Structure formats: C-alpha cells, structure tokens
C-alpha cells in the first residue's frame, strides 16, 4: 500500500508542519495586532475613523485570501519589491486576519453593557482607561471562543500559501506527490495532519463556549 512512500517522505511532511505552524503563528500574531487597531478604529468616537474601519473590514472580507496573496507576492514584485514567500504570505494573511479579528472583537466590546461604561466614567475614569481597565478585560473572556474558532480557519487557510511557492504542509505534499504519485495516500496524510492541528483547538473553543454559557445563565 505504501509503495514508494518511505520514512524520508514522512519526515519531509512532518517537517513541513513546522512551517505551517510558523505561518499560522505569524498570521495570528500580526493579525491580532492589526485586528486590535481595527477594533479600536471601529469603536472610535471619530466618525471618519469608524467609517475607514468599516470600509477596510468590508473590502477585505469581500476579497478571497488567494487574491490577497497574489497581490502581495506578484503585485509587489512587479515594482521591484520581491518578497520571500513567507514574508508575502505573512503580510497577506495579516491583512486578511486583521479584518476578521477586528470585527469579532468589535462585537465583543460592544456586547459589554452600557452601564459598565457609565459606572466607570462616573468614577472619573477616561474613555481610554475605561476601555483598557474595565471593558476589554471583560470582553476578552467573551472573545476567546470565536477567536480560537477563527484560529482553526487560519491554520487551514495557510495551505493557500502553497500557490506562491511557500513550502508548508500542502506544498510539501504536492512535491512528494510529483515524484512518487500516490495522491490518495499523501493528501490523505496531509489532511490527517491538518485535522490533528485543528481538532484540539475546535474542542477547546467549544469547551470554553459551554463554560461561558453556563456562567451567563
């Protein structure tokens, strides 16, 4: 059944998991920083900033990640900025993730009762202090399940970076398949690896959601 598939191929695949994880981490960390900024802009008291954030979210959510990858990788290289594929994928995913996380977190912050704002501001705390010390710490708890849930999406979406030549799990599978042509085995294995990464996170997200619902009941 394993035919020409050897332990060398298996090591190669397992090694590629590291690159998938690295790109996921990069996308998540950079996306979280961007998402934080988008969230702040989205709830700002300045109308123009709010509109800018809305426009950004709507635009990015309406464009496939694949196209963002092409724009950053091929688009910029035409102007002489040829980026390593990891950097290009990191930037494209940061843009993509920030629009989603910004929107998720905006929802969590706005789900905090208005009375918490009032109570804090009536203690002479500024808007920024209120946000930082009262609202965000409480919204954080609420945001964990959807954030982890989105993390799962991010891990799976890193497979798209294979098309700009970044050798992560999917691309590694393609490379092996090109040499020994056993697609069912190889891509089955690749799928299994993705599942092993994502399933624990999904369960964790679900468990947190259950806990949260109990606490709110």
């Amino acid at each position, binding site marked *: 059944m394993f035919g020409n598939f050897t332990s060398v191929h298996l090591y190669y695949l397992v090694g590629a998991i590291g690159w998938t994880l690295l790109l996921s981490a990069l996308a998540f960390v950079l996306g979280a920083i961007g998402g934080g900024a988008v969230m702040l802009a989205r709830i700002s008291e300045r109308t123009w900033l709010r509109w800018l954030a809305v426009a950004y979210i709507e635009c990015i959510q309406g464009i496939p990640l694949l196209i963002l990858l092409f724009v950053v990788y091929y688009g910029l290289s035409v102007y002489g900025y040829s980026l390593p594929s990891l950097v290009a994928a990191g930037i494209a995913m940061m843009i993509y993730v920030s629009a989603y996380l910004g929107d998720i977190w905006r929802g969590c912050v706005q789900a905090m009762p208005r*009375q*918490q704002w*009032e*109570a*804090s*501001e*009536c*203690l*002479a*705390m*500024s808007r920024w*202090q209120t946000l930082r*010390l*009262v609202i965000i*710490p*409480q919204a954080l*708890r609420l945001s964990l399940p959807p954030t982890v849930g989105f993390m799962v999406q991010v891990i799976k979406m890193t497979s798209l970076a294979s098309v700009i030549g970044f050798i992560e799990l999917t691309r590694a599978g393609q490379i092996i398949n090109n040499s020994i042509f056993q697609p069912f085995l190889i891509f089955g294995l690749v799928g299994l690896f993705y599942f092993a990464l994502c399933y624990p996170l999904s369960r964790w997200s679900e468990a947190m959601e259950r806990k949260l619902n109990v606490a709110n009941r």
Partner: protein
Amino acid sequence: MSPIVSVKNVYKSFGPNQVLKGISFEVAKGEMIAIIGASGSGKSTALRCIDRLEKIDQGSIEVAGIRVDDPGVDLHRLRQEVGIVFQAYNLFLHLTVAENIMLALRHVKKQSRTEARQLALQVLEQVGLRQKADAYPEQLSGGQQQRVAIARSLAMSPKVMLFDEVTSALDPQLTGEVLRVMEDLAAGGMTMLLVTHEMAFAKRLANRIIYMHEGRVWETGPGSMLETPQTPELRVFLDNGL
C-alpha cells in the same frame, strides 16, 4: 450658604418625548433630598443630568461651582465631585470587591496600591463588608453588591452623592441593610440626592422631598408633606403606592 447643587429651569427631551419640562431645585451642603414620583415622571433623568450622563436641552445646572451644562465642562473634575450609585449596582465583575474600589483610586487619584487598598478597606468597614474585600461581586447578595457600589463611590470622597433607585432591585430585608448604610452617610454630613420609592425612609430622613409629576417639580416640602399632600396628583400617587 450657597447651594452645592443648583438646577434651574431644565428641559430635556428624548426625541419627541419631553421628559423634563422646566425643573428647578437646589440642594444645600449636608442636605438629604429625596425625589419621588411615578415611573416616567423624569426623576431618574433629572439625577442623570446632574452627573451629565444626559445633556440638557435648556436651563442650567451647577454642581460644586462647576457649570454642568457648559459644552466644554471638565467631566474629569465634575465626576470627582459627584458620586453616583445605580439601581443595577454596576460593579466590575472581573475584579474583586477591593479591586473595584481601588481601580479609580489608583488610576484617577494616582494612589499607590498600598494606599488605595487601605482606603478601600476603610470604606468597606464603613458599609460593613470588610471581610468581603477579596470576594468577587458574583459571590455577594444584591444588598452586599449595592453596599460595595456605595463604598466604591464614597472612596472617591465626592462632595455630593446621587442615588438612583438603589434599592428597587432588592427584597425588603436587603433593602434595609442598604438604607442603613445611607442613613449612616447622611448622619456623617454627606450631601445626598436620592431618587427612591422608599417613602418611609424618605419621610424619616430627608430634609426635603421633591415630588415630580410629568416632568415637573409638582410639590416640594419637608417629610411631613407626605401626610398632608397639597395636590391631588401626590395624593393619588401616595394612595397607589401605600
């Protein structure tokens, strides 16, 4: 002596709904004033306007020398002079009782952690909850949460304290423990303005009672006015309530 709170001819609408139709009253230092009236009479709105949780349309409000109706009012200063306690307690659920009180002391009054903790314990002692300093709000009864909310406000040493139906969500026994705390505060000379449905409490302790009806100050007088209402509206209100 000049009043510490002065409300003059204040109008306030929410959309087409005019809630305050030219109300005026004053509160002197050390006084306890109770505002009573049916729901929808504008009493909570009046209170919220004093702390500028609502902006007024017309008239003027002055608190401790600060013009509250001024568009550029220094909210940071105003809210150090005025404390407010809400019906729903509004404690910060992610912080312990002591941390709830320490938060503004540390970040607004810039006190050290030790200083703030000491003051927090002191005000908790005052409301009889020192032993709950490290509990979370969810572990307390409604009455205890409300006493913490009072302590939190008190710790900022405001010149005036506003109470917006602070016992309306509590059963009679818990109401009693909150009212006792308020009675102690009044005895200590705190200037207090409360919106309340506790007629007996208002009658016994308030220096003056303001009866509001349909957005106006309808009748005002000492506690005894509840026994001899001058207007038919107050008579009906008292009959329905008792």
